[in-house]
């Protein structure tokens, strides 16, 4: 009994030894085969990954494991590493191998993946269709992928300063796909399924301290469709104090992909209850071009209902060259259908830009040129139009949030130049600028202000503009060697007194300060000095078209003596003054102004000379005439 037991153990030991020797031999043989076929394996892997794959060592471990050491995937042309895996363990199915003769991977476990985010995104962008095609054509077999300790780098630096790693678990069971993982402290999960040439995403969740998102949709090599939402906390409350959260809801998109043509047929969503509709045609070929259409009924990001509704339409044709330039043609249209108190009476604003070129070549900043810029605006009372040609600008960052800009352009037959600063304030750029205009023919500015059509001369102006905290444009305008032709008020005086020279007054200089802000528009310190006429005063147009104005008009007596109607009045008062002064005040509605003849020496003399009983008749008569003229 003892002997037979001893023999049995010896046999068992021999069997074990034989098995071990067999396994060892098999391992050695397989490892030799793997070493011999390493290049072929790498070639196959490279074909699958659309990029050169290199592996330092490949080991077989019984019974069904293959260990790969230092796998790296590089960009094909420049061999920059996209990702690097120090060690991976691949498990394959022995039954499939022996029964079906098919090498089938059932799971992969990797540790310490090092990923270069920029190169990975670039690689994904370049091979998007192929990757989707590869994924959608995967055989429906059970598969599990686990990657632990992923380090994500951007430009050579870990994007998580505290070296927080990412993890990924992917499981494919039949047609069902599930994935979960983390990126730093952010968690994500995915539930989906693969159908014919398509991946259906039933639920993709992303949850972090500041972002909560859910998406669903489908992907195939020619189509991406997804719906869902993003809830984003205000991560910078100091800079955006009025903003609680950013809610991107009701995302609805359909993007088709055909070779290098990506067409966003629709990308609709609402951002903090402001609906946005976007379509785009993107051509990835060289040069990269994008035809973009953006529409939004925008009120406010911080849900302030008192803010005006702005219907925004942006249509742009963008071409990005390899020489760090971006060409742009487009228009921006902003319509404000609502009027709110204390806001500018602006109903419409349209900016057209032709042949704009953004040049990022210079190290210090951005250069911009445009052959034509047209700005059109419409208020409740008027329309304004201004054209700039050969616009040139240089922009450079002078502070963390501050962008400085120098610009120049041709303004009709004159020039415009200036400098400004742009600072981001609660999502809106706060712009301030000093602008100089030189030698522009005033009649060409009739689109800017209709009254300019009646002024001839060369305009020069120095003005400053800011839109934060309130919109203010102010400055000084100066016209030299000009004339006033059929200016309403002077035309009326000319008709009233039968004094045709007043219809055209030639002057050497005319100037006025001006200011436009939320209170209205004002011209003050008006000063026109002509041979026989002098005009001073101010004209203020306030909210609701309310006028407040005083005009001081002086006419030389030798001019007045040419008037058949005025001569009797001069005789009546026996006027001796060289300059006869008429001072007027205007008030009330712009289209129905009140009128008062203010005190002056001439008026006093006339009042004394006219008997009281005649004054009322005189007044009524003049009132009717003035009324009829003001109505015009």
């Amino acid at each position: 009994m003892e002997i037979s037991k001893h023999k049995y153990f010896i046999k068992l030991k021999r069997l074990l030894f034989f098995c071990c020797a067999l396994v060892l031999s098999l391992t050695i043989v397989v490892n030799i085969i793997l070493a011999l076929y390493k290049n072929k394996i790498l070639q196959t892997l490279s074909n699958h990954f659309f990029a050169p794959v290199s592996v330092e060592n490949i080991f077989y471990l019984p019974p069904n494991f293959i260990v790969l050491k230092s796998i790296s995937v590089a960009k094909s042309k420049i061999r920059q590493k996209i990702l690097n895996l120090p060690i991976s363990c691949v498990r394959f199915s022995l039954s499939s191998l022996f029964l079906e003769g098919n090498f089938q991977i059932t799971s992969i476990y990797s540790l310490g993946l090092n990923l270069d985010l920029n190169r990975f995104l670039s690689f994904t962008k370049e091979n998007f269709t192929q990757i989707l095609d590869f994924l959608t054509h995967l055989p429906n077999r059970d598969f599990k992928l686990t990657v632990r300790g992923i380090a994500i780098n951007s430009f050579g630096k870990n994007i998580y300063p505290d070296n927080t790693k990412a993890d990924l678990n992917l499981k494919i069971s039949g047609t069902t796909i599930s994935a979960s993982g983390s990126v730093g402290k952010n968690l994500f999960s995915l539930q989906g399924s693969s159908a014919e040439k398509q991946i259906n995403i039933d639920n993709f969740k992303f949850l972090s301290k500041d972002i909560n998102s859910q998406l669903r949709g489908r992907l195939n090599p020619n189509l991406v469709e997804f719906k869902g939402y993003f809830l984003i906390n205000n991560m910078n409350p100091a800079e955006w104090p009025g903003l609680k959260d950013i809610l991107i809801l009701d995302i609805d998109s359909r993007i088709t992909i055909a070779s290098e043509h990506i067409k966003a047929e629709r990308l609709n969503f609402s951002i903090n209850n402001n609906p946005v509709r976007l379509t785009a045609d993107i051509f990835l070929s060289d040069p990269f071009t994008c035809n973009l259409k953006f529409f939004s009924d925008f009120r406010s990001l911080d849900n302030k209902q008192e803010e005006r509704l702005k219907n925004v339409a942006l249509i742009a044709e963008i071409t990005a060259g390899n020489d760090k330039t971006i060409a742009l043609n487009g228009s921006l249209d902003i319509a404000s259908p609502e009027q709110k108190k204390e806001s500018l009476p602006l109903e419409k604003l349209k900016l057209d830009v032709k042949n704009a070129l953004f040049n990022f070549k210079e190290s210090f900043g951005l250069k911009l040129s445009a052959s034509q810029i047209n700005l059109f605006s419409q208020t409740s009372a008027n329309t304004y139009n201004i054209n700039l040609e050969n616009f040139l600008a240089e922009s450079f960052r002078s502070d963390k949030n501050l962008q400085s800009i120098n610009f120049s352009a041709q303004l009709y037959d004159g020039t415009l130049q200036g400098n400004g600063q742009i600072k981001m304030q609660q999502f809106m750029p706060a712009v301030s600028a000093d602008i100089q205009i030189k030698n522009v023919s005033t009649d060409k500015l009739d689109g800017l202000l209709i009254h300019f059509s009646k002024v001839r001369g060369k305009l020069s102006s120095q003005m400053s503009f800011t839109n934060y905290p309130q919109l203010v444009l102010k400055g000084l305008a100066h016209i030299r060697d000009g004339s006033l032709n059929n200016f309403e008020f002077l035309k009326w005086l000319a008709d009233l007194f039968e004094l045709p020279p007043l219809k055209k007054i030639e002057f050497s200089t005319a100037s006025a300060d001006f200011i436009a802000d939320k209170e209205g528009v004002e011209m003050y310190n008006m000063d026109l000095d002509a041979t026989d006429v002098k005009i001073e005063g101010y004209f203020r147009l306030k909210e609701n078209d309310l006028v407040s104005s005083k005009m001081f008009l002086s006419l030389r007596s030798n001019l007045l003596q040419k008037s058949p109607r005025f001569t009797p009045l001069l005789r009546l008062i026996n006027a001796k003054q060289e300059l006869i002064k008429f001072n007027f005040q205007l008030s009330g509605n712009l289209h129905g102004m009140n009128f008062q003849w203010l005190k002056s020496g001439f008026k006093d003399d006339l009042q004394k000379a006219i008997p009281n009983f005649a004054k009322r008749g005189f007044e009524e008569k003049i009132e009717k005439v003035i009324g009829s003229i003001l109505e015009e």
Partner: protein
Amino acid sequence: MKNKIPWLIIFLSFSLLGLRQAHGRTEEYLQAQEAVKSGNKEFSFIYFLSELRNNPQSEKRQEALFATAEYLFFIHAYNDAFNVLVEFVEDYPLSEMRTSALFYMLKIAQTWGKEDLAKAIKKQIINQKRTVFIFQETKEYNFKSPLDIDHKLIYYIDKLEFYSDGNLQAQIFY
């Protein structure tokens, strides 16, 4: 014959009513005027109200509307006063009492603290009349309201003052 008597009475009543209205003043309106003369504003209000309800086509509807609104304003029944004033302003755009009616509406809007409404009314007052001053510095318009209240509007080039019974009620600046 008996059956015809009530019809005859109704016919005569309508005929008399028609005759009264032909003269422009209904019974209610005359009674309202009598009450105003005797200083009894409460009764005059009831008669004016009765005039509005019973004789909607009356020639004196304009006066009755204004008087009703004015009485409601003075007893601080602002909601009702405002509604009647709106009706008056819309129905009688050329009435000499329209500016006074707008001033009452402005006062009510200011009492309610409705700035936007007050601004809109103010704009209507400003647009109501253009004034031209050649030798005069001011222009005065006086009238007596159906409730026997003296109204006075003084126009300046840059402001308008509204007085009732000699007291400055409101002023607006252009």
